[in-house]
């Protein structure tokens, strides 16, 4: 069996993992990046549209361009790569030597030991089973990301006419991609009363092609024996489909863009504690999990709006991996809680007296909202936020002097009433 030893092993070569690897390899730490695909870049390689890199590289790039830059930076810094390699199991208990079992067609089973492990496995798409759409089970139902991979990497068209369920960004991008590939998109159906995707995608991917967006509607049935023939759409009244106003749209393809789930099966095998709200690991200010030396960043931690933010977060984790390898420890940390109108806040712990950037997701749509930060129930900071909506991640930097005394830090959003 092939045996390997590194200072840092990064699992996942996407927007997050590549950014971590660049940081740790640049500092002279031996770094291995493992990915199960044939190439590095992760989902970026199928995201051929532009809109990446404005924050991280100060330049607008497509997904593959963004990925190649990150990969070159990591390789030039000395990071090594094992592709077509799947991490099968974890033994993280030993603080000094974390042990991974990995499998690849080239080397068979490998035992890899590392002083620190970065979890950067990203996320996966919610599928039909996750959202429970009634009806028959014909062919022609794809997650939006699978259809994206088929069209953009394999050159295969998934069907002849489509309805998209969910208005997440991947679904919107795919509405344009399908239209440009000669597949008319008959409708986008969103269960919530507001779109899940970014406004620029609503405008350039739906409005440009006059694709109807049905807000507050649900697909109440998928029809078809061998292949999808039509979908039945119903408006929601108080959360219940109103069958008296249902209508049917003919199509042979249904795409699902109904959210993403951090991919943490491996993390759980290793004993990493998961935050039930985000589906990602609970992490401290260093983005370190409950297991010392095991870090997480990017979409495996919580789903980001932009690849740039995933890379930035993973680079931050990379800098703390270096601290960890240099023998530093975060010291005593205190808990962070999400209060009113917020779905979650990350990180889940903070170091008193240290300036910390927090990321959170709103549960409400508001023009004028106020973010209130409290320490043990006492308000320490207030920030006006304009145009708050669930699809756009919020962030706030809390100065160290405000948290020096420690205690539970909580965040809440006050709506002005839209």
């Amino acid at each position, binding site marked *: 069996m092939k045996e390997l030893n590194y200072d840092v092993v990064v699992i996942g070569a996407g927007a997050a993992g590549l950014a971590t690897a660049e940081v740790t390899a640049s500092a002279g730490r031996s770094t291995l990046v493992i990915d199960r695909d044939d190439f590095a870049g992760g989902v970026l390689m199928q995201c051929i549209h532009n809109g990446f890199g404005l924050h991280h590289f100060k330049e607008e790039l497509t997904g*593959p361009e963004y990925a190649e830059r990150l990969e070159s930076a990591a390789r030039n810094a000395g990071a090594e790569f094992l592709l077509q390699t799947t991490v099968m199991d974890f033994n993280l208990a030993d603080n000094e030597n974390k042990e991974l079992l990995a499998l690849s067609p080239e080397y068979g089973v490998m035992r890899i030991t590392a002083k620190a492990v970065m979890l950067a496995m990203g996320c996966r798409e919610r599928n039909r089973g996750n959202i429970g759409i009634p009806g028959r089970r014909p062919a022609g139902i794809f997650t939006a990301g699978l259809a994206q991979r088929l069209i953009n990497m394999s050159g295969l068209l998934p069907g002849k006419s489509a309805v998209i369920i969910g208005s997440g960004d991947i679904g919107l991008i795919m509405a344009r991609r399908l239209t440009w590939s000669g597949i008319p998109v008959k409708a986008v159906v969103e269960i919530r009363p507001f779109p899940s995707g970014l406004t620029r995608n609503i405008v350039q991917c739906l409005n440009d092609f006059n694709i109807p967006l049905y807000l507050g509607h649900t697909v109440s049935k998928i029809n078809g024996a061998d292949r999808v023939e039509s979908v039945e759409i119903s408006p929601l009244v108080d959360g219940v489909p109103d069958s008296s106003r249902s209508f049917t749209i003919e199509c042979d393809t249904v795409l699902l863009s109904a959210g993403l789930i951090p991919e943490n099966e491996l993390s759980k095998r290793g004993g990493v504690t998961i935050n039930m709200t985000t589906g990602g690991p609970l992490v401290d200010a260093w983005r370190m999990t409950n297991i010392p030396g095991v870090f997480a960043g990017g979409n495996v931690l919580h789903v980001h709006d932009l690849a740039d933010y995933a890379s930035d977060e993973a680079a931050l984790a990379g800098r703390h991996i270096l601290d960890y390898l240099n023998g530093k420890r975060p010291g005593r940390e205190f808990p962070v809680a999400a209060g009113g109108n917020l779905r979650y806040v990350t990180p889940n712990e903070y170091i008193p007296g240290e300036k910390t950037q927090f990321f959170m997701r709103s549960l409400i749509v508001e023009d004028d909202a106020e973010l209130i930060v409290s320490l043990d129930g006492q308000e320490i900071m207030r920030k006006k936020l304009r145009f708050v909506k669930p699809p756009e991640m919020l962030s706030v930097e809390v100065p160290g002097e405000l948290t020096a005394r420690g205690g539970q830090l909580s965040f809440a959003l006050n709506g002005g009433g839209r």
Partner: protein
Amino acid sequence: MKRELICISCPIGCHIQAEMTAAGEVEVSGNRCPRGKAYALNELTDPKRMVTSVVACASKELPFVPVRSSAPVSMALIGELLDTLRALEVAPPLASGSVVLSDFKGSGVNIITTRSVKE
């Protein structure tokens, strides 16, 4: 004719009503800043979009290579551009940024690869 637009210059997303006057001026309302007017002017006169697609590639690694326009393309030309790209086939090795179609219809826009293909 009044057009309803959503400005995408920033995350606010103003809902703009825009109309071309007889004098060739654009009248806008609903915008909160001058960028909204500039956006509406472009949308009413010559709307342009970045185009990204894939082109067949005679490669062992990758059957289709992703491409993008070097600059935004007039929306009126996009259909024809996509048809042209569909008929195109390129061969490796290709560095990212290689031109596969130059100066499309005299627009000054090139189509370039966005991924490198070695073999």
